């Protein structure tokens, strides 16, 4: 339990240190309504479709800094380049990456995911599949940060073939497809696929290990804005602060710069607190288990030593009768207790450490990571990374852990010595030898 608890604590620290500096900025109201909760599709049946997002027609660049008084009462539905510029200017901001998402259910590319039976009627309209059934829309993400697919809403994404796009291809008609989407449409690297009248070349195929994640594709941000007729619009910006301690201040400054009511600003700390809840729960459980195990061990040792002292009361009486002091007898019992406890600790550790990984896996239930799902793409992106980290809790037995266990065993032995010490002090030789 010490090992398991230590592994959970280490993993939580790792997650905090790895992902704790990101701040996600989206138009107000975007968080909590994800891809499937949002409005109509951006498909035009070959032509540029309607410019809708979140059910609201985008009237242009409604940043929180608009001079129009009406803008302050009706939050914007998208961010704009100038908003990104304001964020970039904030101190402690290291980088800002922008993404735009659109759902596509037009011709030429068919979703690999079928909607559930009795699905929420408020959900987006499914598309008519080639076989006559209904299918979900495909998530298309435009991003200016193609370096890491993990940042784009897919967890632990790995390219299975091809490559991702680079900065020089910000206007290129290239796409990286999810494995499920590629398989369903029988596409491979080098093939082309039409989206809203633009022919994209498939340059890479990735897998995220989830059906939803693999039912999406990624294109350069500017290309996406053009194809879906949303020039200059951004659905979210991911801001990196220089240190974890600056994250909260950066989030505050962003809210101030863009208008408190205009944007939702969520730090990864917040998201990860939710995402790592299973890990935290498991850590709490393992800590409780550790305390219970220590308590049980202490009780067992105390009773055992007490019992041993009682069974050896005659020996104690003899020793005292021939001139042994309480200290002598207690020391003898204490040394014996310590030797037994340390031996038991070593044997126990050697026999139970191999089981620690299984205990950890048992305590850590698989978290449901909403990749590209109900809690928004940004949430999904961070959650995806968190999920990946959660799944990799590795229980290793370090020398420190071993020494820690040993120290606890010796501590318990010392505490257990209190019982014989108290008992030995009470033994009157004449009494115990009289009733032998």
């Amino acid at each position, binding site marked *: 339990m010490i090992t398991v608890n230590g592994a959970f604590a280490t993993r939580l620290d790792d997650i905090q240190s790895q992902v704790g500096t990101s701040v996600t900025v989206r138009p107000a109201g975007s968080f909590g309504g994800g891809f499937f909760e949002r409005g109509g599709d951006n498909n035009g049946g070959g032509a540029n479709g309607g410019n809708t997002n979140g059910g609201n027609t985008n009237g242009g660049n409604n940043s929180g800094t608009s001079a129009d008084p009406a803008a302050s009462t009706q939050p914007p539905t998208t961010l704009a380049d100038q908003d990104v510029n304001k964020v970039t200017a904030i101190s402690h901001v290291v980088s800002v990456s922008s993404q735009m998402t659109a759902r596509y259910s037009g011709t030429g590319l068919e979703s690999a995911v079928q909607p559930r039976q009795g699905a929420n009627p408020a959900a987006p309209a499914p598309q008519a599949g080639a076989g006559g059934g209904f299918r979900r829309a495909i998530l298309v993400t435009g991003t200016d940060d193609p370096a890491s697919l993990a940042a784009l809403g897919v967890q632990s994404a790995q390219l299975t073939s091809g490559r991702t796009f680079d900065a020089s291809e910000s206007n290129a008609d290239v796409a990286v497809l999810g494995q499920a989407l590629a398989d369903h449409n029988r596409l491979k690297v080098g093939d082309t696929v039409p989206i809203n009248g633009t022919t994209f070349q498939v340059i890479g195929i990735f897998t995220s290990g989830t059906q939803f994640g693999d039912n999406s594709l990624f294109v350069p941000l500017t290309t996406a804005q053009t194809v879906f007729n949303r020039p200059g619009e951004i659905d979210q910006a991911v801001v990196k602060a220089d240190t974890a301690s600056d994250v909260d201040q950066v989030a505050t400054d962003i809210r101030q710069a863009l208008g408190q009511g205009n944007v939702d600003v969520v730090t990864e700390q917040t998201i990860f607190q939710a995402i790592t809840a299973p890990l935290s729960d498991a850590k709490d459980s393992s800590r409780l288990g550790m305390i219970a195990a220590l308590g049980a061990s202490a009780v067992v040792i105390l009773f055992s030593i007490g019992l041993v002292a009682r069974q050896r009361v005659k020996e104690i009486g*003899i020793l*005292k*009768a021939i*001139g042994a*002091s309480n200290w002598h007898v207690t020391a003898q019992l204490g040394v014996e207790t310590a030797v037994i406890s340390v031996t038991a600790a070593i044997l126990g550790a050697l026999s139970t450490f191999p089981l620690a990984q299984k205990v950890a896996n048992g305590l850590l239930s698989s978290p449901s990571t909403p990749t590209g799902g109900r809690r928004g793409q940004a949430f999904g992106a961070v959650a995806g990374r968190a999920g990946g980290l959660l799944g990799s809790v590795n229980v290793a037995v370090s020398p420190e852990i071993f020494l820690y266990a040993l120290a606890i065993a010796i501590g318990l032995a010392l505490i257990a010595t209190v019982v014989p010490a108290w008992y030995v002090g009470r033994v009157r030789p*004449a009494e115990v*030898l009289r009733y*032998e």
Partner: protein
Amino acid sequence: MNEQTEANNGYIAVANDLVKHFQSGPSRVRAVNGVSFRIPSGRIVAVRGASGCGKSTLLNLIGALDKPDSGELRVDGVDVPRLTGAPEVAYRRRKVGFVFQQFNLISHLSALENVKLPMELEGDSKRASDEVASALLRQVGLADELHRRRPAKLSGGEQQRVAIARALANNPPIILADEPTANLDSKTGRLIIDLLQALRRDDRTVIIATHDVEVAAKADAILEMSDGQIVSRSGG
């Protein structure tokens, strides 16, 4: 005779009106009821009486294994009832050696280790205690090949010899023997009494609690006890 004994006018043990009660269920039993005696140094004294007359309790009081409820007891100049803590431990280690009816050897130690134990408690070196313990075991007649045996591998007589050797380990002036022959056959019992008698040669005082008339007959003096009281005295 040492200075302390001289201070007690040649008596190594002097008791005045010793009383010791025991709680036995709801009733309070007077195990030792106003006992007074004077025991000269270098004698064998038998405390004789039926089982339960209080003789073992009297030996426990002399050996500081128990405390009297009232009365005075001085042994080799030491005010025994007032002993507590380190002086009490030192008294048990240096002034008296106990020989029990049940031998009371430490079962997981060898005969030699049992005899060494009081010396090790006293802080003697391993080598010195080894030599003295071996010599004592030879003195009480235990063959060398038995020195490394544990008590369970020794006969009753051999165990009692080991117990006597242990009692002599720190060379105490008084040996207290509580029914030392009760668990032995008569022949072995006689050998043990002869052994205890031999200790007198070193000006050592031996107090033997016994119900055996034959054993008591070999003592220099006899204190006859009944119902916690000394009812008669005989001999020197």
